[in-house]
């Protein structure tokens, strides 16, 4: 009888990377649904374009690095990156925006660092930041939350692909675009309006926060909670992030409610929930130990709030996450857990004395 020789353990759990990634994709569906219902087909199309480009770029990169292509594509990480980036882009952004963004995210943000598991920065956020800095106009041209019926699928598709080519299309897009709640807040605060006055604007006429935007964030919250329940992400990061953000917002709102937004507003605006549950929890780029995760999440929350209130960009999730990605090795250095049998935790990397 021919017997296999393998090392223990001889049984394995049901966990699988590819399956985990698919679960993440599944969890984005509520948020994507909200986006489509309020802002039209654009986000869905962006996600599709990004996904296709992502798979193409990943295959190219793997071939260049002489790795087995199908094996690595099967871990679905490229698609997740693409979808997250697609969700962050404005619905009517020209087709080349997700293409460039995804290509940058996959090739530079992921494979240049050594492929899955070796990147320091979240690739989706890297792509987003790159696009934001390179193409600020297109990246800030959001639609008003007028519902899915404002444009048909075909129309959206045409606009996306003709956006920069056809002056007529450009005019339509320009005519349609509106600012996000965060954008409005920042601009109008600069115009010396007070927050209560700003809240009167139509863009803020949702029942909790910005119209449409609150549902998007609630959608992502539901998805995120599902992931926590499944054990795919760690609850410490989103909780720390949201708690810190809310706390700071609350404190400063108490200090001067004319100039600072409310906690609910901050929690349900922009990419807060998407960032908290899907991007900050990206295991590759997040901190390792439990205490580390708390610190990481908390500082992201704080940074989001600071940049939103005092910084130049309306939405700060991408930058906050990128900044804290930089800090992860230091956080890991100082937050090793105490192991069984040791009196206290060690820290540092440990170099032997010679």
């Amino acid at each position: 009888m021919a017997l296999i020789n393998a090392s223990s353990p001889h049984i394995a759990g049901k966990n699988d990377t590819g399956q985990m990634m698919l679960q993440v994709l599944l969890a984005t569906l509520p948020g994507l649904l909200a986006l489509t219902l309020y802002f039209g087909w654009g986000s869905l199309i962006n996600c599709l374009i990004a996904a296709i480009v992502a798979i193409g770029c990943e295959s190219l990169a793997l071939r260049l690095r002489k790795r087995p292509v199908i094996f690595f594509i099967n871990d679905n990480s490229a698609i997740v990156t693409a979808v997250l980036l697609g969700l962050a882009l404005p619905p009517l952004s020209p087709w080349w925006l997700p293409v460039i963004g995804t290509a940058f995210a996959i090739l530079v943000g992921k494979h240049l660092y050594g492929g899955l598991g070796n990147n320091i920065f979240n690739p989706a956020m890297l792509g987003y930041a790159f696009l934001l800095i390179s193409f600020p106009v297109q990246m800030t041209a959001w639609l008003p939350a007028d519902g899915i019926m404002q444009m048909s699928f075909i129309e959206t598709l045409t606009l996306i692909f003709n956006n920069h080519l056809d002056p007529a299309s450009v005019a339509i897009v320009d005519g349609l675009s509106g600012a996000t709640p965060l954008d409005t807040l920042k601009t109008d605060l600069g115009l010396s309006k007070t927050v209560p006055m700003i809240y009167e604007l139509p863009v803020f006429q949702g029942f909790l926060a910005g119209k449409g935007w609150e549902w998007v964030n609630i959608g992502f919250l539901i998805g995120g909670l599902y992931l926590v329940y499944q054990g795919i992400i760690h609850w410490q990061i989103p909780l720390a992030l949201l708690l810190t953000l809310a706390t700071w917002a609350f404190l400063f709102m108490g200090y001067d409610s004319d100039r600072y937004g409310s906690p609910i507003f901050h929690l349900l605006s922009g990419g807060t929930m998407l960032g908290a549950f899907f991007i900050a929890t990206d295991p590759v780029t997040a901190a390792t130990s439990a205490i580390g995760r708390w610190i990481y999440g908390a500082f992201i929350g704080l940074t989001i709030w600071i940049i939103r209130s005092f910084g130049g960009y309306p939405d700060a999730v991408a930058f906050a996450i990128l900044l804290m990605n930089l800090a992860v090795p230091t956080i890991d250095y100082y937050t090793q857990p105490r192991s069984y049998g040791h009196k206290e935790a060690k820290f540092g990397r440990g170099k032997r004395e010679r």
Partner: protein
Amino acid sequence: MRHRVWHLRGGIHPPEKKSLSLSLPLRTASLPEQLIVPLQQHIGAPVSPCVAVGERVLKGQLIASSDKATSALVHAPSSGTINEIGMHPVIHPSLIEQPCIHIDCDGKDEWIDHSGVDNYAALDTQTLLSRIREAGIIGMGGAGFPSSIKLNARHNQIETLIINGAECEPYITADDILMQERAVEIIEGIKVIGHILQPKEILIGIEDNKLLAVAALERASAETTIDIVKIPTKYPSGGEKQLIKILTGKEVPTGGLPLQVGVIVHNIGTVYSIYKAIIQGKPCISRITTLTGEAMNNRGNVKALIGTPVRHLLKEGGVQESQLFRIVAGGPMMGFTLPSADLPISKTTNCLIAATRSEMPPPPPEQTCIRCGQCADICPVTLLPQQLYFFSKAQEFDKAEQHNIFDCIECGACSYVCPSHIPLVQYYRYAKGTIKQLRVKEEKAEASRQRFENRQARLEQEAVEKEAKRKARAKAAAEKAAQKTSAEPSPQSAQQSEDELARLKTAAASTAKLSIEAKKALSQAEKKEENSDKLEQLRQKVALFQANSDKAKEALKAARQKPPANTPPSSKVGEPKEDKAILELREKAASTQDALKQAKKALLAAKTSHTNDLEAIEIQVNQAKKEAGAIKAQLREALIAQKEIPLQQDTPAQPTSDTVPSSTEASDKVTAALARNERRKAQKALDLALAENKSEHKIATLRKAIDDAGSESQ
């Protein structure tokens, strides 16, 4: 009484699959044809066989032993004949062959005489421990550490005795069935251990999926103070350190022993063996092994003899070879696969899983780590497995050690949960082994460096000593040489002075000759009565030559007075005075000889010229003869004496004694030589006399002289 249970961090809940092997009661496996008993089943000092090939042994007979306390004795599991004592592969991942004793079973299964004790409480601790050691009992939970050493604790040192009935690994039910069916014996065994250790409390930790076992033990221990504690089912709560944490809340310090927190843990199987050893007097020769796996039809627990080949047990369990894909010895989490079924089981083999392909499929290929952190979530030791993985893979062993890789208990939970199917535990095993290897290498390098430096130091020391010796010798040689130059010149100057002497001799001889010729010429001229001018010329010549001759003679005399002049080669060192004496004698001899010669000549001349002073001249001649003779005698004596002395001395330039003639020989030689000389001279004189027609009287005198010389020369 409810005993508090602490929470164990992490852990996993793999499918238990224990019901597979619990459908049948415990049965005894059939006797195999051959038993291959490994000699090194334990951690500790090796044992050596104490039987010979061909010998018949009885069941329970001692077949391998050692004096060392850390050894575990081996006994024959059944009666039979020793077939072979040699190397055979055993159940060990390395598959390196180990010494084994092969026994051909004769089927009789005949026990050796044995007896237990009725009252173990009457025996003292040392006796009980030595009996346990003699029974060859080791930790049967898997570690294999000799139990007698583990039980050898000081009194009042143990607070808690924990009996490990957790059996947390899936598939294994050996301990479960033992607890169910031998509960009374187990409690007895625990009492024996309790008597040895005198702990404050005794706990049996059992997972709550073994309710039947709990019930059986509770019944058996109803009258005792032994606590049966149910713990939540979780893998790996049955690990020693984990169980201590669950039952007592204490943590064993890293790198330390449970003894340090006052706890000792023993496996249920070990307890049962101790019972058999003390109460029944039977050594450890069998164990309960679970035969399970979906490729087996008659799954269940068997009491198997140590050394039974796996093939036999698989047959016992009814294995379907066509379905068999993997054989695992041990549990699915920590056991290892067997490449063949011909390996023998040992005292620590608690389970054999015959798995089908679908049950334990081949491991999927390793993917990249996505740092999901699930491994860190479930690690019971609170390590960071992903960091350890990165460090082990990159061979950054310093960092791995710093992240406490040596605290890893290799439970395999991290590999179980890894979504990327990374064999994490395998990396840690590799890293730990390599780190240990590197430590050994380092120590060896340090020792080599030490030896090398010591060797260098020793060689330097030797060189220094050699140099010092050489200098001392050179110094001594220089001193001796200096002494020698103050008494005699160096060999170099001796040679020179000899040359000088020769030169002077020839000079003296030649000038003497010239002066004699001149004198002759003068006398002839006077005879011929040449004119006065010529005579005057000739007289001047004679005077000049005479003066030269005298000068040369003087010089020769002076040179002869210097030390090494005529010394023979054997007498260089230490006899200047004697040489001097001899030289003087020689000179005297030479001069008297000269005088004699001249006197003789004068006599001859007088005789031929018929002068009147013939008698006076004759008297002169006689005197001269006497003198010469005396001096000669003296010289002879001196020479003899001198030649004797160098023969006894140990001089460096002296050739070996073989080439130096003996003293008497030498003196004889000298005497003979001198005598011969005399004879020759006498002969010459006679011939001359005969030729010149001398008087008869003269001729007779001369003949007599010859005879005298001849007799002397004998």
